[in-house]
């Protein structure tokens, strides 16, 4: 029965797929390959306001250097979990994805990523050693590589100097996000890992130790408490909220602070003293990618220092390039200097915040892949936090009143109807 059903569906799906096939045929004749790239939002230089359009540059590079017609189909996600769900379910197939460290680890263990060929990515040599191969925890320690770093950074707290004074007690710490004086001004992450991260770092616990359920329970209590104070749970909406002055305190990624600062120079930034998260976003190729060769060329292209610098100057994230060595490089020295100048123009301390002492002195623990049980636990805790609501009883009271009114109306309606029917009947009998 199930089989017959499947066959029936298949017939219909095949009929539906005709346009897809026909488009494939057309593509083949023109030899245009579409490369599906899946990246974080606002995470590439896209030609907006006279910046370099990296994807268009890559298409040009393919035409001129590789002699192939490639079209980049670029789409974005707003959280790692979002991306993982899309790739895992197979709803869409991508050639290059750019997730963060702990998700890469999970995807490697689940066999979702393709082993990369170092020979096809010669530009790997420009990347600092500490971000490559066995030096990062998420790569297997057997010499194989599955990812090439794209950007890295730490999470910090962005605040509005017009609202938050540097003299208050909670300043400099995660406590600022729990400060009751700023009720309605605080933004929290809208993804489970980062949100629980803020609470765990504040408590001084490990963010990876799911065995210790008491820690996570404590974090949940803390987040529930915070729910009364936050204006919202956001991801990239944070840009608009902080720029427009709608909210005054938000934890977010260091690079994004500069993007916001450009539009609102009242913003400030610090790394919380209790320690924070170090993240590395790296380029990977899913094992079901259709064009792994072009994907490797794409990754290699993104590592070319002039392209990487253009991206870094656009996104303001910290680049894993070996900038110090490259500064004196014949070919790319200018690109690096240009990048430094551009960053200095954005914020006088930009380089210091991204690469300097300020960043180095704060302790940082990366997220690691959690065990399946740990993930379920985290998901349950997150659902519990989400379901928690701080609405007052007045809403229930109003609802009750409405329901009572509706009920009364319904009863009245039926009584009237019956009376009328009786009346009709008596008239009829008469």
């Amino acid at each position, binding site marked *: 029965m199930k089989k017959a059903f499947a066959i029936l569906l298949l017939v219909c799906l095949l009929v539906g797929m005709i346009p897809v096939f026909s488009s494939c045929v057309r593509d083949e004749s023109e030899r245009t390959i579409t490369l599906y790239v899946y990246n974080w939002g606002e995470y590439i230089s896209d030609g907006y306001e006279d910046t370099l359009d990296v994807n268009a540059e890559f298409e040009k590079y393919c035409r001129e250097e590789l002699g192939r017609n490639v079209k980049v189909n670029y789409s974005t996600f707003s959280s790692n979990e979002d991306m993982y769900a899309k790739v895992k379910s197979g709803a869409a197939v991508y050639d290059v994805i750019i997730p963060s460290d702990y998700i890469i680890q999970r995807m490697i263990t689940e066999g979702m990523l393709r082993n990369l060929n170092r020979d096809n990515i010669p530009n790997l040599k420009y990347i600092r050693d500490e971000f490559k191969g066995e030096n990062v925890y998420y790569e297997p320690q057997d010499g194989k590589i599955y990812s090439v770093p794209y950007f890295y950074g730490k999470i910090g707290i962005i605040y509005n100097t017009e609202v938050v004074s540097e003299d208050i007690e909670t300043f400099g710490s995660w406590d600022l996000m729990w400060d009751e004086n700023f009720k309605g*001004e605080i933004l929290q992450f809208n993804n489970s890992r980062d949100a629980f991260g803020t609470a765990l770092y504040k408590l001084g616990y490990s963010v990876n130790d799911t065995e210790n359920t008491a820690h996570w329970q404590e974090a949940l209590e803390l987040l529930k408490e915070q729910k009364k104070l936050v204006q919202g*749970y956001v991801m990239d909406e944070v840009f608009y909220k902080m720029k*427009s002055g709608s909210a005054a305190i938000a934890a977010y990624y260091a690079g994004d602070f500069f993007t916001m600062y450009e539009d609102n120079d009242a913003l400030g930034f610090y790394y919380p003293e209790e320690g924070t998260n170090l993240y590395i976003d790296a380029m990977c190729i899913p094992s079901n990618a259709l064009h792994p060769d072009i994907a490797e060329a794409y990754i290699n292209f993104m590592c070319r220092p002039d392209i990487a610098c253009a991206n870094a100057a656009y996104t303001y994230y910290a680049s894993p390039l070996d900038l110090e060595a490259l500064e004196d490089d014949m070919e790319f020295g200018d690109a690096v200097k240009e990048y430094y100048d551009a960053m200095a123009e954005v914020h006088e301390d930009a380089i210091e915040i991204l690469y300097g002492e300020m960043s180095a002195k704060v302790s940082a623990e990366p997220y690691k892949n959690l065990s399946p049980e740990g993930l379920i636990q985290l998901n349950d805790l997150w659902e519990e936090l989400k379901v928690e609501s701080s609405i007052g009883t007045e*809403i229930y009271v*109003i609802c009750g009143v409405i329901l009572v009114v509706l009920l009364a109306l*319904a009863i009245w309606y039926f009584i009237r109807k019956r009376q009328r029917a009786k009346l009709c009947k008596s008239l009829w009998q008469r």
Partner: protein
Amino acid sequence: MKKKQSMIRAAASSPYVVWSVLFIVAPLLFVLWFALTDGNGSFSIENIRGLSAYGRTFVMSIGFSLIATAVCFLIGYPLAYAMARTSRRIRNILTVLIMLPMWTSLLVRTYALMALLDNGGIVSNTLTRMGLLNGHLNFIGTGGAVILGMVYDFLPYMILPIYTSMTKLDIRYVEAAADLGCNGTQTLFRVVLPLTVPGIVSGLTMVFVPSISTFYISQKLGGGSFDLIGDTIERQFQNTVTYNTGAAISLVMMILILISLGVMNHFTDQKSEVIVK
């Protein structure tokens, strides 16, 4: 001849029957299937039992959409009444004005409402400048904002059906009521209101159903702090691979809505339509 005809009839209707079985009935069966199985595909009622954790979400969603529907009715009915009493030319213009927001993207309208009411938005700034407000409005991210969003987004769907049933209403009933000594208020409550019940019912459902299932409004105007049924379902399908829970919630919501639609339809039996005609 007769046989041939019926065969043709069967052949003609088959594409539609196939389509509706495959794409209307089968998807619902898949919802049922996912709701009643666990991740490995074996039967379990864990998903349904696990829904008790979302009890508050259901209550809150129903509460919010009930309030929004009631507010829409209280605003929309008088408006439809006033509209129906204007001249034909103005009426036509007003109809266009009601329909324009209906066809404008809901995403844009909701986002614009958020921008308008946000701290640092026009309303907040103007109030501050007038000295009525000290600092921030802090309205976005409250339950009130979510309800306002529902009212704003779905109000046209309340007005239009009521207005239509009012224009269809035979003016002679109103005249007769007046002749028989009803004053304005009495006419409204004893003649106009009962005769526009079909419009009211379709207006109520057209506001209630999208309100209870929205996720965009609560995301934007509630700041993600008010988790409505729609948000919960969306999260199960977008952020995490928990299709089974999502299917179970969808199933329960669907049943809930179908029941309430059934109850609502009781109030628009054919009799009242006969009276209108």
